[in-house]
């Protein structure tokens, strides 16, 4: 079976700085894969390369057998890759429900003309978009916040809102950039259940960056570890956890 996402020899330079070097990865459909590594090791850069924010210096990114390298971001999202951000990028001045509705944008077909004249087709489509947005908010336990201005929501809820927004684009693959950052232990537990639920209910493949070892070891089926843009370990959670190179990257060399 061809993998959902296949990355080959991905390399990226910022000027003279080598951010990612010869990164290879395959993600099969329906899995939850994790990417870990110390700060500044190039994890977010890899997400940015996949989603077209940066144009890779070298390498190939195949999604469902199609090369998406060099495509504009919104086209990549259209193909079925959604993401969240490490330092939230919420539409702060808009209501929570509008944050979701915007993400339903590309599936709406009402023309400018129909929208301005408010033709019946426009109205029924708007109702459908609203219903779907409310369903998503409900799934994220945010339905009582629908009309709230997004920037007034607490941090944990904003994280969930961003995941809901990403899901609203109906992705096949969702990239989560440190979804548990800043969450308390209870919220982390809920998040882990949520991620598993997303995979099962929405049939979405999950690729996540995380520092929370509990999350990584708890839900990821396969883990890739990078440092200075290079892969240093890869495998099942238990194997990676005890890999000497991983311990060294995180904790430093054992004194002799």
């Amino acid at each position, binding site marked *: 079976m061809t993998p959902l996402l296949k990355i080959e020899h991905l390399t990226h330079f910022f000027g003279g700085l080598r951010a990612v070097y010869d990164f290879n990865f395959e993600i099969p459909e329906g899995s939850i894969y994790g990417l870990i590594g110390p700060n500044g090791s190039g994890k977010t850069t890899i997400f940015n390369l996949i*989603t077209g*924010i940066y144009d890779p210096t070298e390498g190939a990114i195949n999604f469902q057998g199609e090369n998406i390298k060099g495509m*504009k*971001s*919104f086209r990549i*999202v*259209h193909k079925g890759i*959604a*993401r969240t*951000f490490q330092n939230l*990028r*919420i*539409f*702060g*001045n*808009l209501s929570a429900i*509008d944050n979701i*509705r*915007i*993400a*339903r*944008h*590309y599936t*709406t077909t*009402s023309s*400018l003309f129909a*929208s*301005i*004249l*408010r033709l019946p087709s*426009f*109205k029924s*489509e*708007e109702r459908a*978009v609203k219903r779907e947005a409310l369903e998503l908010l409900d799934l994220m336990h945010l339905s009582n916040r629908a009309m709230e201005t997004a920037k007034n929501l607490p941090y944990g809820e904003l994280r969930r809102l961003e995941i809901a*927004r*990403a899901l*609203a*684009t109906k992705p096949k693959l969702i990239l989560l950039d440190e979804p548990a950052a800043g969450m308390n232990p209870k919220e982390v537990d809920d998040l882990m259940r949520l991620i598993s639920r997303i995979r099962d209910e929405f049939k979405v493949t999950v690729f996540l960056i995380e520092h929370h070892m509990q999350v990584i070891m708890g839900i990821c089926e396969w883990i890739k570890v990078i440092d200075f843009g290079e892969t240093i370990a890869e495998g099942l959670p238990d194997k990676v956890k005890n890999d000497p190179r991983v311990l060294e990257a995180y904790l430093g060399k054992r004194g002799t």
Partner: protein
Amino acid sequence: MNVRKLPRFLIAVVLFYIVVEVLYRTEILNGYLLHIINLSLIYVILATSLNLINGITGQFSLGHMGFAGVGAYVSGSLTTLILKLSVTNPASMLPFLLSIIAGGVVAAFVGFLIGFPSLRLKGDYLAIVTLGFGEIIRTIFNNIDAVGGPRGLLGIPKFSNFTVILVAAFLTVVIIRNLIESSHGRAMLSIRENELAAELVCVNTTRYKVMASTFGAFFAGIAGGLLAHLIQLAHPTQFGFIKSVEVLIMIYAGGVGSLTGSILAAFGLTFLSEGLRLGIRALADATGLPIGGEWRMVVYALLLIFIMLFRNEGLMGMRESRIIKNVEVD
């Protein structure tokens, strides 16, 4: 009948029309005041359309009056130089309206062209490009002898009246509101809020920036045409940088992103500016102080500084009045 479903904005505008007409017919409202109301309504078109670009889509434009100039000169040339319409002939109304729309369409095309180079620019840089563009338009009018050069295009027939201007302002607000409350408008809002995130929820940011610029320019062109046919003149200085800043001030005073705010500020600041002229003259007469009408700009500017200091989100912030908001959306 469900009261919530009534077209509140339409009712408000019809009431406004009746009140103004009755007051004018009974001579409580003189021609001068009606002129100020007409000017305010034209500023409503200018401010709401600039708000679509600056407030809704978040692209800082400083050349809005340039588009108005295009509309004014195109429609003015059509009615005055080419069609030679006369106000006394009732059959002239339709060609006049078509000329105004033609002015809007040409302005929209210019807005569309300007949209492209501006796409790669943000914030201050975009402001400078649009500023430069506005000045180019002004200079072009200044140097075309066929439309009067620096003297301006004179003798434009006075077709714009209260009814025409009010209908135009009403349609502008309704169209922009309906646009904002649609999926297209939400795409524009998302660009203002966070362009990268917008792109990553599948919004074609390029397309919507150009669309906002085109729409904004179209309505500015309409406003310019109506203005030229109200004051019977199209002059390069009317469409310069300072005038663009005036409209910009309106949207900031009213609240960036709020159509209600733009409407209130268009009326408020137009009346304030005229009221200060009269007020200061009266003050000078009463006290014998050597101050003339030109001091009104000082007071006007001071008032604006106070608005920004004490209410920097503008009159309305980003809120919208329930009269303007569409009922079906919530």
